[in-house]
């Protein structure tokens, strides 16, 4: 799971633009015998896979069926199941009639995220201000939509949240929480004070060393042991905290990489200007360091988005959990491939868009040309 984190935590160096660009696509396909052989093999493989997929999904696919048995007859893809259950997979146990609310919330969130991720908007003061206002407003709107209880929307407790919105909330809130902690940890690990350094290093190494599964088990099942009796905390919140601590360790390492890349002269300059430690970090060092690590941070977000699938083990019905649940009702027992394929494609689509963005950003920030 954490492979994405590991990869992201180590600043990836983008490839320099390769010279071969100027030959067209066909270049290098048939220039030597081994190459031609490889090409032919790959083409054959692609055709075989293509035909098999077409046969399974379309030729033998079943669009009209009431039960898993009717679907199983052709052995093809059971579209009828998806048509019946897609809302459960997307929204989990959220009350059926109210599911437009998480849907709208997701759209709002996607718009907000899309807008804030455009580097063009960061440059200008006015658009920065607009973003600064848009964030709290949108988040308040999303919270109101999900929880309800205001403007005549019926209240929906957080334990009924599920599916894709839950996955998104877990990942984005977890990562935002982790971000603040990660900055402190990264600074602490580079501090001159040995005790602070030891604490931060210990924290980072601990959370990077234990499996997320074990942490979530602790947070969900054994949590009551760690607090005074009768203290309670929402499971969603606990999971968020576990995620935040876990991702903070990885993010801290990414940020540390950014800090290390800052030339020593910058520190010296700050000192000679008489800036205090925090002034220097806030105004000079961090803005530069964070800029260089934005792509890694996006990669960590992608990893977090996928890793949230582990909350299945702590009573939460996220996207993967909802896929599990979608075959619960007797008539769809025995289906196994379709729900998983469906959610795999959703994960793939969302993560691929984000990683494409992260690559584009890397190119734009010119990190490769350092």
């Amino acid at each position, binding site marked *: 799971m954490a492979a994405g984190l590991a990869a992201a935590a180590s600043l990836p160096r983008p490839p320099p633009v390769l010279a071969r660009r100027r030959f067209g696509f066909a270049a290098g396909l048939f220039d030597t015998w081994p190459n031609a052989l490889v090409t032919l093999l790959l083409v054959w493989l692609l055709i075989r896979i293509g035909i098999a997929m077409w046969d399974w999904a379309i030729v033998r696919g079943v669009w009209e069926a009431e039960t898993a048995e009717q679907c199983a007859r052709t052995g093809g893809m059971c579209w009828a199941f998806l048509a019946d259950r897609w809302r459960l997979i997307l929204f989990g146990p959220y009350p*059926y009639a109210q599911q437009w609310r998480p849907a709208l919330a997701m759209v709002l969130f996607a718009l907000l995220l899309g807008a804030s991720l455009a580097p063009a908007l960061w440059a200008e003061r006015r658009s920065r201000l607009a973003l600064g206002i848009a964030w709290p407003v949108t988040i308040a709107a999303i919270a109101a939509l999900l929880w309800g209880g205001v403007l005549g929307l019926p209240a929906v407790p957080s334990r009924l949240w599920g599916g894709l919105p839950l996955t998104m909330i877990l990942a984005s809130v977890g990562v935002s929480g982790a971000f603040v902690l990660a900055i402190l940890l990264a600074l602490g690990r580079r501090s001159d004070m040995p005790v602070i350094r030891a604490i931060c290093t210990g924290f980072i190494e601990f959370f990077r060393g234990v499996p997320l599964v074990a942490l979530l088990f602790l947070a969900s099942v*054994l949590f009551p042991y760690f607090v005074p009796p009768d203290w309670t905390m929402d499971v969603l919140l606990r999971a968020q905290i576990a995620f935040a601590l876990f991702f903070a360790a990885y993010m801290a390492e990414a940020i540390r990489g950014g800090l290390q890349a800052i030339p020593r002269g910058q520190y010296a300059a700050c000192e000679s200007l008489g800036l205090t430690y925090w002034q220097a970090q806030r105004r000079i060092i961090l803005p530069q360091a964070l800029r260089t690590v934005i792509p890694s941070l996006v990669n960590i977000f992608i990893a977090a988005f996928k890793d949230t699938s582990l909350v299945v083990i702590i009573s939460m*019905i996220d996207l993967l959990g909802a896929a599990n649940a979608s075959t*619960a*009702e007797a008539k769809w*027992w*025995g289906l196994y491939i379709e729900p998983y394929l469906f959610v795999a494609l959703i994960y793939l689509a969302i993560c691929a868009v984000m990683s494409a963005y992260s690559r584009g950003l890397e190119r734009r920030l010119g990190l490769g040309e350092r």
Partner: protein
Amino acid sequence: MLRRTALAAAALLGLGAAGDAMAQAAPDQLKTIRDRGVFRCGVYENVPGLSALDAQGNRVGFDVDYCRAMAAAVLGDGSKVEFRTMTLAQGIPALKSGEVDMIALALTYTIQRDTELGLDFVGPTLYSGHAFMVHKRSGATKLADLNGATICLVAGGITDTLISDYFRARNMTFRPVAIENTTQMYALYEEGRCDVVTSEVPFLGMRRSRLRNPADHLILPEMFAKSHMGPVVRDDDRAYSHVARWVHFALVNAEEMGITRENVARMASESRDPAIRRFLGVEGEIGIKMGLANDWTQKVIAAVGNYGEIFDRHYGAQSVIKLPRGLNALAFDGGLQWSPTWR
């Protein structure tokens, strides 16, 4: 500065010590639940019949109804349940840590769990036993044929140990494939990863009815171990344990008296039978003395119906498996479900 730090540290340490002091206070589970306003119940995420989501995202199942019955008894409202879905392996740790008030995971009643692990069993709410289902093409027809088999089982329960004991005693061997998710387990069995799948008889029957070709699979008639199951609570609060056990008895008693979800309100207001009136809390103070509302039985039955209704809904006539009542019929009818006298 340093002194202030030391003081702060001491204060925090004091908190730790307070934890120790609180250790002595006897837990009052009923009060805790009432203060919280919601009953926390551990159930399976997706085991059809026991606990699963329907198309509208509502949690339904035999175990789920026991959670609702508890909520109705303690809080007066069967919908005030917070379901914590968990696997078998997480159930007991979550219950013992205080994360949930009850687990309804069809746990097998064993002496070790009752005496050593500090649990109290409700019921048994379902009498049954562990059996094996095999592919017919394997030719196995009795337990002795299973030597060397690969067996799919649910991880985290006692099935592992039960089979292990059974096979070792007969000089037989097997290979376990232990899976947490039951749906996945049956899929693996169907794909032929395992020769045999094991579970309690009703669950095997339920699953077989949904395999691609139910006729290709045989549930071996012999059971290799008994399994009488029920919800479980911690045993550190006797008043609460009583409530949990008597909720089950109330469900059975209601069936014995012919009180159903539909007629419970009418029975309470119209019945002249003192036994029924006492049972429904119209007369006497049984409920109050238990620390509940006097009409808690009415609330329970209004929420989930009587035992027979629950059984029919999830296992019996109204379900897909149509499991006969068998051992789970009322004692009057020759089964094992009974309730003590209500007075």
